[in-house]
Protein backbone atom coordinates (compact mmCIF):
# COMPACT_ATOMS: atom_id res chain seq x y z
CA UNK A 1 0.00 0.00 0.00
CA UNK A 2 1.57 3.24 -1.05
CA UNK A 3 1.12 6.23 1.19
CA UNK A 4 1.49 9.47 -0.67
CA UNK A 5 2.50 12.78 0.77
CA UNK A 6 -1.03 14.01 0.15
CA UNK A 7 -2.45 11.23 2.32
CA UNK A 8 -0.11 12.17 5.14
CA UNK A 9 -0.98 15.82 4.75
CA UNK A 10 -4.66 14.95 5.04
CA UNK A 11 -3.97 13.06 8.24
CA UNK A 12 -2.14 16.07 9.67
CA UNK A 13 -4.90 18.54 8.85
CA UNK A 14 -7.76 16.35 10.00
CA UNK A 15 -6.08 15.20 13.21
CA UNK A 16 -4.89 18.65 14.23
CA UNK A 17 -7.79 20.84 13.15
CA UNK A 18 -10.86 19.27 11.59
CA UNK A 19 -11.20 16.56 14.22
CA UNK A 20 -9.31 18.39 16.93
CA UNK A 21 -9.11 15.94 19.78
CA UNK A 22 -10.19 18.50 22.37
CA UNK A 23 -12.69 20.71 20.59
CA UNK A 24 -14.30 18.16 18.30
CA UNK A 25 -13.83 14.85 20.08
CA UNK A 26 -14.03 15.95 23.74
CA UNK A 27 -10.93 13.95 24.63
CA UNK A 28 -8.22 15.27 26.97
CA UNK A 29 -10.32 17.90 28.72
CA UNK A 30 -9.04 17.56 32.31
CA UNK A 31 -5.47 18.72 31.73
CA UNK A 32 -6.75 21.19 29.13
CA UNK A 33 -8.93 23.00 31.63
CA UNK A 34 -6.48 22.61 34.47
CA UNK A 35 -3.32 23.69 32.69
CA UNK A 36 -4.51 26.45 30.40
CA UNK A 37 -4.10 29.22 32.94
CA UNK A 38 -1.08 30.71 31.23
CA UNK A 39 0.70 30.29 27.97
CA UNK A 40 4.07 29.02 29.19
CA UNK A 41 2.46 26.22 31.23
CA UNK A 42 0.42 25.24 28.21
CA UNK A 43 3.39 25.13 25.89
CA UNK A 44 5.43 23.08 28.33
CA UNK A 45 2.64 20.63 28.88
CA UNK A 46 1.94 20.45 25.18
CA UNK A 47 5.52 19.43 24.51
CA UNK A 48 5.55 16.82 27.26
CA UNK A 49 2.24 15.41 26.05
CA UNK A 50 3.51 15.33 22.48
CA UNK A 51 6.60 13.42 23.50
CA UNK A 52 4.70 10.80 25.50
CA UNK A 53 1.94 10.58 22.90
CA UNK A 54 4.25 9.83 20.00
CA UNK A 55 6.43 7.39 21.93
CA UNK A 56 3.51 5.46 23.40
CA UNK A 57 1.74 5.32 20.04
CA UNK A 58 4.79 3.73 18.48
CA UNK A 59 5.36 1.25 21.31
CA UNK A 60 1.70 0.19 21.55
CA UNK A 61 1.45 -0.08 17.77
CA UNK A 62 4.42 -2.42 17.77
CA UNK A 63 3.06 -4.49 20.67
CA UNK A 64 -0.37 -4.73 19.09
CA UNK A 65 0.71 -5.83 15.65
CA UNK A 66 3.53 -8.15 16.67
CA UNK A 67 2.35 -9.62 19.96
CA UNK A 68 -1.32 -9.04 20.67
CA UNK A 69 -2.79 -10.07 17.36
CA UNK A 70 -0.63 -13.15 16.79
CA UNK A 71 -1.25 -14.33 20.35
CA UNK A 72 -4.95 -13.38 20.39
CA UNK A 73 -4.49 -11.23 23.47
CA UNK A 74 -6.72 -8.37 22.33
CA UNK A 75 -8.65 -8.31 25.59
CA UNK A 76 -5.54 -7.24 27.49
CA UNK A 77 -5.31 -4.10 25.41
CA UNK A 78 -6.66 -1.59 27.91
CA UNK A 79 -4.42 -2.81 30.71
CA UNK A 80 -1.19 -3.06 28.74
CA UNK A 81 -1.57 0.20 26.82
CA UNK A 82 -2.14 2.25 29.96
CA UNK A 83 0.77 0.50 31.70
CA UNK A 84 3.02 1.37 28.74
CA UNK A 85 1.98 5.00 29.07
CA UNK A 86 2.60 4.98 32.82
CA UNK A 87 6.07 3.51 32.32
CA UNK A 88 6.94 6.05 29.61
CA UNK A 89 5.81 8.93 31.83
CA UNK A 90 8.06 7.61 34.61
CA UNK A 91 10.96 7.48 32.15
CA UNK A 92 10.29 11.02 31.00
CA UNK A 93 10.20 12.14 34.62
CA UNK A 94 13.56 10.53 35.36
CA UNK A 95 15.14 11.93 32.18
CA UNK A 96 13.87 15.42 32.86
CA UNK A 97 14.98 15.36 36.47
CA UNK A 98 18.51 14.46 35.40
CA UNK A 99 18.96 16.55 32.27
CA UNK A 100 16.53 19.45 32.45
CA UNK A 101 15.94 20.04 36.17
CA UNK A 102 14.46 23.51 35.63
CA UNK A 103 11.77 22.25 33.31
CA UNK A 104 11.16 19.37 35.69
CA UNK A 105 10.54 21.71 38.58
CA UNK A 106 8.35 23.99 36.49
CA UNK A 107 6.09 21.15 35.47
CA UNK A 108 5.67 20.02 39.04
CA UNK A 109 2.64 17.91 39.65
CA UNK A 110 1.48 17.99 36.06
CA UNK A 111 4.10 15.55 34.89
CA UNK A 112 2.71 12.42 36.57
CA UNK A 113 -0.77 13.64 35.62
CA UNK A 114 0.06 13.08 31.97
CA UNK A 115 -0.56 9.39 32.58
CA UNK A 116 -4.25 10.02 33.06
CA UNK A 117 -4.48 12.24 30.01
CA UNK A 118 -7.25 10.47 28.12
CA UNK A 119 -5.91 11.86 24.87
CA UNK A 120 -2.76 9.78 25.00
CA UNK A 121 -4.59 6.52 25.66
CA UNK A 122 -7.21 7.40 23.04
CA UNK A 123 -4.52 8.04 20.42
CA UNK A 124 -2.91 4.66 21.11
CA UNK A 125 -6.31 3.05 20.49
CA UNK A 126 -6.92 5.02 17.30
CA UNK A 127 -3.44 4.23 16.00
CA UNK A 128 -4.31 0.55 15.88
CA UNK A 129 -8.05 0.78 15.18
CA UNK A 130 -7.50 2.85 12.05
CA UNK A 131 -5.10 0.23 10.66
CA UNK A 132 -2.31 2.73 10.27
CA UNK A 133 1.18 1.70 9.34
CA UNK A 134 4.13 2.91 11.40
CA UNK A 135 4.70 6.11 9.46
CA UNK A 136 1.03 7.03 9.65
CA UNK A 137 0.98 6.35 13.39
CA UNK A 138 3.90 8.73 13.94
CA UNK A 139 2.39 11.46 11.77
CA UNK A 140 -1.03 10.97 13.35
CA UNK A 141 0.19 11.19 16.93
CA UNK A 142 2.31 14.27 16.20
CA UNK A 143 -0.68 15.94 14.54
CA UNK A 144 -3.04 15.19 17.41
CA UNK A 145 -0.48 16.54 19.87
CA UNK A 146 -0.15 19.63 17.69
CA UNK A 147 -3.90 20.19 17.71
CA UNK A 148 -4.01 19.64 21.45
CA UNK A 149 -1.25 22.19 22.05
CA UNK A 150 -2.77 24.75 19.69
CA UNK A 151 -6.17 24.55 21.38
CA UNK A 152 -4.63 24.72 24.86
CA UNK A 153 -2.40 27.67 24.03
CA UNK A 154 -5.35 29.49 22.44
CA UNK A 155 -7.41 29.06 25.57
CA UNK A 156 -4.47 30.03 27.79
CA UNK A 157 -3.94 33.24 25.83
CA UNK A 158 -7.56 34.17 26.22
CA UNK A 159 -7.64 33.27 29.92
CA UNK A 160 -4.60 35.44 30.56
CA UNK A 161 -6.48 38.41 29.13
CA UNK A 162 -9.69 37.41 30.91
CA UNK A 163 -8.05 38.01 34.26
CA UNK A 164 -8.38 41.72 33.63
CA UNK A 165 -11.91 41.56 32.31
CA UNK A 166 -15.13 42.12 34.19
CA UNK A 167 -16.45 38.59 34.46
CA UNK A 168 -19.58 38.06 36.60
CA UNK A 169 -18.51 36.77 39.98
CA UNK A 170 -19.79 33.24 39.83
CA UNK A 171 -18.46 32.66 36.35
CA UNK A 172 -14.88 33.53 37.13
CA UNK A 173 -12.34 30.85 36.45
CA UNK A 174 -13.60 27.52 35.24
CA UNK A 175 -17.11 28.41 34.03
CA UNK A 176 -15.68 31.18 31.87
CA UNK A 177 -13.01 28.81 30.55
CA UNK A 178 -15.70 26.44 29.35
CA UNK A 179 -17.73 29.17 27.73
CA UNK A 180 -14.65 30.39 25.87
CA UNK A 181 -13.96 26.80 24.87
CA UNK A 182 -17.45 26.66 23.38
CA UNK A 183 -16.54 29.62 21.19
CA UNK A 184 -13.26 27.99 20.18
CA UNK A 185 -15.16 24.83 19.32
CA UNK A 186 -17.52 26.79 17.09
CA UNK A 187 -14.53 28.34 15.34
CA UNK A 188 -12.95 24.95 14.74
CA UNK A 189 -16.16 23.63 13.20
CA UNK A 190 -15.33 26.02 10.40
CA UNK A 191 -12.53 23.66 9.42
CA UNK A 192 -15.00 21.00 8.34
CA UNK A 193 -15.06 20.46 4.65
CA UNK A 194 -11.50 21.77 4.35
CA UNK A 195 -10.36 18.53 2.79
CA UNK A 196 -12.25 17.66 -0.33
Amino acid sequence: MSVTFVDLFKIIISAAFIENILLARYIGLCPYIGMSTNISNSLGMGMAVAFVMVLSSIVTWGLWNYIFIPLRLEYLRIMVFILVIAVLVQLVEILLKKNLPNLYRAMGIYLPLITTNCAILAVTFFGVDYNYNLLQVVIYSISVALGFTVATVLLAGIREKLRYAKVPNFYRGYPMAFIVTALLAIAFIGFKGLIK
Partner: protein
Amino acid sequence: MKPQLKISLTLAVVCAIAAASLAAVNQVTQKAIAINSLKELEDSLKIVYPIADRFELEGASDREVSSETENQGFTIIAQYQAYQGDQKIGKVYRVGSKGYGGQIVLLIAISTQTSTMVGMRVLEHQETPGLGSEITSMNFQEQFQNKPLTDSFELNRDIQALSGATISSRAVIRACQGVLSELGKEAGQ
Protein backbone atom coordinates in the same frame (compact mmCIF):
# COMPACT_ATOMS: atom_id res chain seq x y z
CA MET B 1 11.67 -10.33 52.77
CA LYS B 2 13.85 -7.95 50.78
CA PRO B 3 11.82 -4.88 49.80
CA GLN B 4 12.69 -5.20 46.10
CA LEU B 5 11.52 -8.77 46.07
CA LYS B 6 8.29 -7.91 47.85
CA ILE B 7 7.56 -5.14 45.35
CA SER B 8 8.11 -7.27 42.27
CA LEU B 9 6.27 -10.21 43.77
CA THR B 10 3.21 -8.14 44.70
CA LEU B 11 3.09 -6.59 41.27
CA ALA B 12 3.49 -9.96 39.58
CA VAL B 13 0.76 -11.59 41.67
CA VAL B 14 -1.70 -8.76 41.04
CA CYS B 15 -1.00 -8.79 37.31
CA ALA B 16 -1.37 -12.55 37.14
CA ILE B 17 -4.73 -12.49 38.89
CA ALA B 18 -5.90 -9.64 36.69
CA ALA B 19 -4.81 -11.31 33.48
CA ALA B 20 -6.39 -14.60 34.51
CA SER B 21 -9.75 -13.05 35.36
CA LEU B 22 -9.76 -11.11 32.10
CA ALA B 23 -8.96 -14.27 30.16
CA ALA B 24 -11.92 -15.92 31.84
CA VAL B 25 -14.32 -13.06 31.08
CA ASN B 26 -13.00 -12.99 27.54
CA GLN B 27 -13.78 -16.67 27.08
CA VAL B 28 -17.31 -16.19 28.29
CA THR B 29 -18.10 -13.17 26.15
CA GLN B 30 -16.24 -14.08 22.96
CA LYS B 31 -19.01 -16.08 21.41
CA ALA B 32 -21.64 -13.46 22.05
CA ILE B 33 -19.43 -10.74 20.58
CA ALA B 34 -18.79 -12.74 17.42
CA ILE B 35 -22.47 -13.52 17.03
CA ASN B 36 -23.32 -9.84 17.44
CA SER B 37 -21.15 -8.65 14.61
CA LEU B 38 -22.45 -11.35 12.29
CA LYS B 39 -26.02 -10.53 13.22
CA GLU B 40 -25.41 -6.83 12.64
CA LEU B 41 -24.23 -7.53 9.14
CA GLU B 42 -27.11 -9.88 8.39
CA ASP B 43 -29.63 -7.38 9.69
CA SER B 44 -28.35 -4.52 7.59
CA LEU B 45 -28.24 -6.66 4.45
CA LYS B 46 -31.79 -7.79 5.09
CA ILE B 47 -33.01 -4.23 5.54
CA VAL B 48 -31.67 -3.07 2.22
CA TYR B 49 -32.76 -6.21 0.31
CA PRO B 50 -35.86 -7.53 2.12
CA ILE B 51 -36.96 -10.22 -0.33
CA ALA B 52 -33.64 -12.04 -0.26
CA ASP B 53 -33.34 -14.77 2.32
CA ARG B 54 -29.60 -15.24 2.40
CA PHE B 55 -26.38 -13.56 1.39
CA GLU B 56 -22.92 -14.80 0.57
CA LEU B 57 -19.73 -12.82 0.67
CA GLU B 58 -18.06 -12.74 -2.71
CA GLY B 59 -14.39 -12.53 -3.39
CA ALA B 60 -11.92 -11.10 -0.89
CA SER B 61 -12.76 -11.11 2.82
CA ASP B 62 -14.84 -8.29 4.24
CA ARG B 63 -12.23 -5.96 5.61
CA GLU B 64 -13.03 -3.03 7.85
CA VAL B 65 -12.87 0.44 6.34
CA SER B 66 -9.20 1.15 6.68
CA SER B 67 -7.30 4.35 6.34
CA GLU B 68 -6.29 3.50 2.81
CA THR B 69 -9.88 3.67 1.71
CA GLU B 70 -10.73 6.61 3.89
CA ASN B 71 -9.29 9.28 1.66
CA GLN B 72 -10.59 8.09 -1.66
CA GLY B 73 -13.73 9.22 -3.44
CA PHE B 74 -15.25 5.80 -3.85
CA THR B 75 -14.30 2.28 -2.80
CA ILE B 76 -15.97 -1.06 -2.77
CA ILE B 77 -15.50 -2.57 0.65
CA ALA B 78 -17.29 -5.84 0.04
CA GLN B 79 -19.90 -7.39 -2.18
CA TYR B 80 -22.46 -10.04 -1.45
CA GLN B 81 -24.51 -12.32 -3.63
CA ALA B 82 -28.20 -12.25 -2.72
CA TYR B 83 -30.18 -15.47 -2.92
CA GLN B 84 -33.80 -16.45 -2.79
CA GLY B 85 -33.67 -20.14 -2.10
CA ASP B 86 -31.04 -21.37 -4.52
CA GLN B 87 -31.59 -18.67 -7.04
CA LYS B 88 -29.24 -15.73 -7.41
CA ILE B 89 -31.46 -12.69 -7.51
CA GLY B 90 -29.02 -9.84 -7.12
CA LYS B 91 -26.07 -8.32 -5.32
CA VAL B 92 -25.45 -6.03 -2.41
CA TYR B 93 -22.43 -3.75 -2.40
CA ARG B 94 -20.95 -2.30 0.73
CA VAL B 95 -19.18 0.85 -0.42
CA GLY B 96 -17.41 3.86 0.91
CA SER B 97 -17.77 7.36 -0.48
CA LYS B 98 -16.13 10.57 0.63
CA GLY B 99 -18.69 12.91 2.16
CA TYR B 100 -18.44 16.33 3.75
CA GLY B 101 -17.31 15.28 7.20
CA GLY B 102 -15.61 12.04 6.32
CA GLN B 103 -16.20 8.59 4.94
CA ILE B 104 -19.79 7.52 4.30
CA VAL B 105 -20.39 3.77 4.32
CA LEU B 106 -23.49 2.58 2.49
CA LEU B 107 -25.16 -0.58 1.26
CA ILE B 108 -26.52 -0.59 -2.29
CA ALA B 109 -28.69 -3.49 -3.35
CA ILE B 110 -29.12 -4.36 -7.02
CA SER B 111 -31.56 -6.82 -8.49
CA THR B 112 -29.97 -8.56 -11.45
CA GLN B 113 -33.33 -10.00 -12.41
CA THR B 114 -35.16 -6.74 -12.87
CA SER B 115 -32.10 -4.52 -13.50
CA THR B 116 -33.15 -2.15 -10.78
CA MET B 117 -31.58 -0.70 -7.71
CA VAL B 118 -33.56 -2.32 -4.94
CA GLY B 119 -32.52 0.17 -2.34
CA MET B 120 -29.81 2.06 -0.53
CA ARG B 121 -29.01 2.32 3.15
CA VAL B 122 -26.46 4.57 4.83
CA LEU B 123 -24.58 2.65 7.52
CA GLU B 124 -22.03 5.11 8.82
CA HIS B 125 -21.42 8.76 8.24
CA GLN B 126 -19.94 11.86 9.82
CA GLU B 127 -22.08 14.45 8.11
CA THR B 128 -23.38 17.57 9.79
CA PRO B 129 -26.29 16.80 12.09
CA GLY B 130 -29.49 18.24 10.69
CA LEU B 131 -28.10 18.84 7.22
CA GLY B 132 -25.97 16.12 5.66
CA SER B 133 -27.16 13.60 8.23
CA GLU B 134 -30.53 13.64 6.48
CA ILE B 135 -29.08 11.19 3.95
CA THR B 136 -30.29 8.58 6.43
CA SER B 137 -33.86 9.90 6.31
CA MET B 138 -36.57 7.85 4.66
CA ASN B 139 -37.43 10.70 2.29
CA PHE B 140 -33.97 10.75 0.79
CA GLN B 141 -33.39 7.01 0.77
CA GLU B 142 -36.78 6.32 -0.82
CA GLN B 143 -35.55 7.90 -4.04
CA PHE B 144 -33.26 4.95 -4.49
CA GLN B 145 -35.87 2.26 -4.02
CA ASN B 146 -36.71 0.10 -7.03
CA LYS B 147 -34.98 2.50 -9.35
CA PRO B 148 -34.24 1.37 -12.93
CA LEU B 149 -30.50 1.12 -13.52
CA THR B 150 -30.92 2.95 -16.80
CA ASP B 151 -31.81 6.18 -14.98
CA SER B 152 -29.23 8.91 -15.15
CA PHE B 153 -28.62 9.21 -11.40
CA GLU B 154 -27.82 12.88 -11.82
CA LEU B 155 -28.08 15.32 -8.97
CA ASN B 156 -31.23 17.49 -9.16
CA ARG B 157 -32.19 16.10 -12.57
CA ASP B 158 -32.80 12.57 -11.40
CA ILE B 159 -32.20 12.58 -7.67
CA GLN B 160 -33.30 15.46 -5.46
CA ALA B 161 -30.38 16.77 -3.45
CA LEU B 162 -30.83 17.61 0.20
CA SER B 163 -31.13 21.34 0.83
CA GLY B 164 -27.91 22.64 2.34
CA ALA B 165 -26.17 19.31 1.85
CA THR B 166 -24.99 19.15 -1.74
CA ILE B 167 -21.72 17.47 -0.93
CA SER B 168 -23.35 14.77 1.17
CA SER B 169 -25.94 14.12 -1.55
CA ARG B 170 -23.23 14.03 -4.18
CA ALA B 171 -21.32 11.47 -2.17
CA VAL B 172 -24.30 9.13 -2.25
CA ILE B 173 -24.71 9.64 -5.98
CA ARG B 174 -21.03 8.93 -6.50
CA ALA B 175 -21.47 5.67 -4.62
CA CYS B 176 -24.40 4.67 -6.86
CA GLN B 177 -22.51 5.54 -10.02
CA GLY B 178 -19.49 3.63 -8.77
CA VAL B 179 -21.60 0.54 -8.23
CA LEU B 180 -23.15 0.92 -11.67
CA SER B 181 -19.79 1.10 -13.38
CA GLU B 182 -18.63 -1.93 -11.39
CA LEU B 183 -21.69 -3.82 -12.58
CA GLY B 184 -20.88 -2.77 -16.12
CA LYS B 185 -17.36 -4.07 -15.71
CA GLU B 186 -18.56 -7.41 -14.39
CA ALA B 187 -21.13 -7.77 -17.14
CA GLY B 188 -18.47 -7.04 -19.72
CA GLN B 189 -16.25 -9.86 -18.43
